């Protein structure tokens, strides 16, 4: 007997499919991604937190401490809070021929200049890659335009 569960976005658990789909609306791109930015993890874990509270009989125990503390960490170290902004950040970074890894480091640390970006992600300047300072500055500029809050 094979039971297929709908994905998180359409979770049948609470019976409120539409609501859940609307809540986690950072788009599907991140699902294909292997690496996540802190701001994406923040939205995911926050969403899960409510579900965890609903179904858990015992209060947060030792094992779920890691969940709570991870949520605390990603909330603290994310610049972008609302789902639209988070989606935009990934979209912008995706346009610049970055690896998954580079995209996430930049999205996490939010460098302000091309120099800082290269210090954090030296691979931007390795041989054969086309990332000029101008291109990096443009990318950082696009990022700075993303509204952090609603």
């Amino acid at each position: 007997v094979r039971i297929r569960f709908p994905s998180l976005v359409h979770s049948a658990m609470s019976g409120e499919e539409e609501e859940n789909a609307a809540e986690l609306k950072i788009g599907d791109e991140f699902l294909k991604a292997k690496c996540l930015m802190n701001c994406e993890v923040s939205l995911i874990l926050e969403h899960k937190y409510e579900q965890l509270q609903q179904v858990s009989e015992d209060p947060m125990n030792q094992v779920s401490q890691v969940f709570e503390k991870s949520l605390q960490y990603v909330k603290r170290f994310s610049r972008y809070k609302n789902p639209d902004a988070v989606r935009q950040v990934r979209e912008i970074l995706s346009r610049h021929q970055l690896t998954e890894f580079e995209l996430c480091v930049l999205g996490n640390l939010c460098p302000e200049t091309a120099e800082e970006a290269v210090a954090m992600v030296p691979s931007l300047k390795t041989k054969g890659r086309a990332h000029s300072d101008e291109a990096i500055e443009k990318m950082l500029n696009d990022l700075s335009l993303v509204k952090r809050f609603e």
Partner: protein
Amino acid sequence: MFCLSEMEDTVRVPPDLLNLPLEVAIKKVLQKLLLNKVLSIGLCVSIYDIKSAEGGFVLPGDGPATYKVRFIIVVFRPFVGEVIAARFKESDSNGLRLTLGFFEDIYVPAPLIPRPNRCEPDPYNRNQMRWVWIFEEQEYIIDDSCQINFRVENISYPPVPTEQAEDAKPFAPMVITGTIDDDGLGPVSWWEGCSERNNEDDDT
């Protein structure tokens, strides 16, 4: 950084959970099995999604129902060369220990602290040594006053000890060695014009 990882495993759901909706029961078993454990792909911090479950047979003489489950987890997986934001936890004559809250086995050994520097007894904490970086005749104390960026130099996975002395430190299945000796690394306050970037709450 954090990653999503798809896995497949055999999950045994004990009889006392079988009255719950299946997805809930399987999630509970997976949480107990995987949360806060270091797997080959990283430290598991959350069960993200159950994609499918097959089986449900009760094997003869065995109470639990067995399912073959495909699921996705969120893991913390450090990469060598990755720059990560952390906080100061403690320091001694060997170097610094940094923390992410959910993961605390990050060590910056003395050779990876920028020089010149000195190590001295911490006037605010008798049991601790503190590190001070000296740059252009200014002294920069390394403490918990702000975010510290470090770069991952090495990740090790010590084997599980067969015995441990009673007063031994708790076993750390994954240990990160980091450096703060490079541009942009170390306490963020060291970098001129770089105020706190992220949403740092007050230290509470």
